[in-house]
């Protein structure tokens, strides 16, 4: 079969809503785009452990400490599922990790912002995980089987992540004046970076159309961003918090919240590596990797010796 007719058949399968599995034929570009997208997603989970991990040892109650630790641990697990899914496309974890550690791969820019107070932990759960859920619920219907299955698992496990965050946001908003001030300050700092998580406007997002055509995504960046805003503005108002956007206004006709323009200079700056924490995040990941090298080697060497011994014995 010619490449064109294979591609046509592939597109038909996608349009019929069929799931693509690792051993199936797929266009090279589909595979490449998926590797890029999925490994970025995996990196985001792993780098995303750091900002919240920053507060585990300082959590203000045992309950919160256990919740936070298990949440950050979940993120490691989600990174692992996603690396696994990426491996089905022939990209080993070793390779994609190298790309991250050498600065060739990206991860979500949101994690290049610092967590300055405990309230940031609450707001990350509420806003950042809230945004992630919207994105991931869509990706759970993605055309690539391993990706969509990883997403289903992640969505299931993540259902408590946003809830614990919003619970804490509500408590602090209803708390002492200091707590109220702390939580509003965190919302002020995280709102805009969270909106940026959905990526550039549709017209500036060259990958989007292609990913939608291939059934990897089913909604555009702007559509996803809008549903995030609609939901979270209401949740903010429900607990008496203000959204730091003077242009925010409800449109009765469209039944959507209209919001101000994102500072795209800031967005591109952080993407290019000039965010407040880019360098530190990468340094931390590299250090963990370097410090783990002797451990990984030791375990492999032990396994090799054991195998040799077994072979000798038999």
């Amino acid at each position, binding site marked *: 079969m010619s490449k064109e007719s294979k591609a046509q058949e592939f597109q038909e399968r996608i349009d019929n809503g069929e799931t693509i*599995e690792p*051993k*199936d*034929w797929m266009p090279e570009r589909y595979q490449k785009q998926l590797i890029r997208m999925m490994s970025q997603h995996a990196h985001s989970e792993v780098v995303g452990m750091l900002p919240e991990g920053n507060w585990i040892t300082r959590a203000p109650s045992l309950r919160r400490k256990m919740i936070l630790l*298990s949440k950050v*641990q*979940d993120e490691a*697990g989600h990174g*692992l*599922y996603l690396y*696994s899914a990426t*491996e089905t496309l022939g990209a*080993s*974890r*070793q390779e994609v*990790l190298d790309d991250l550690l050498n600065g060739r791969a990206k991860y979500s820019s949101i994690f290049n912002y610092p967590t300055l107070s405990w309230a940031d932990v609450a707001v990350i759960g509420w806003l950042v995980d809230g945004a992630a859920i919207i994105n991931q619920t869509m990706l759970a219907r993605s055309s690539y089987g391993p990706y969509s299955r*990883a997403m289903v*698992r992640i969505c299931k*496990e993540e259902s408590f992540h946003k809830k614990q965050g919003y619970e804490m946001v509500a408590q602090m908003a209803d708390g002492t004046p200091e707590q109220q001030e702390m939580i509003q300050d965190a919302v002020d700092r995280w709102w805009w970076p969270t909106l940026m998580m959905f990526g550039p406007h549709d017209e500036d997002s060259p990958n989007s159309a292609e990913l939608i055509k291939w059934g990897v995504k089913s909604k555009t960046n702007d559509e996803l961003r809008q549903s995030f805003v609609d939901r979270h503005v209401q949740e903010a108002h429900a607990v008496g918090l203000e959204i730091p956007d003077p242009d925010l206004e409800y449109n009765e006709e469209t039944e959507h919240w209209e919001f101000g323009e994102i500072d795209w200079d800031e967005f591109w700056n952080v993407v290019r590596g000039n965010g407040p924490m880019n360098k530190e995040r990468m340094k931390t990941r590299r250090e963990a990797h370097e410090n783990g*090298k002797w451990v*990984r*080697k030791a*375990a*492999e*060497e*032990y*396994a*090799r010796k*054991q195998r040799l011994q077994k072979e000798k014995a038999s």
Partner: protein
Amino acid sequence: MTKTDEKESKDTQWPLWEVFTQPRDGKPHEHAGNVHAPDAEMALENARDVYARRKEAVNIWVVPSDQIVASKGEDAGPFFDPADDKPYRHPQFYSVPRVSKRRK
């Protein structure tokens, strides 16, 4: 330990293992995902920590990924279609008198 051993200098993320978990006693094992591990014992431990964090399993199998043999997607037709013309393998093929269950 020989210094010349090539493996000594190579850093890896360990080999890949497929993980199958049994959700409950009496249920079959299902594919859960995979983990990296240097050997079988570590593969079991890692699988437990990764795929049974929420007590999702009562038993775990781990298999080196390169030991899995799978049929190809292209084979789907020739491999499985023949079963299509054997309707007698399915219970819907048979009509039997309906016996209604009597409740106590």
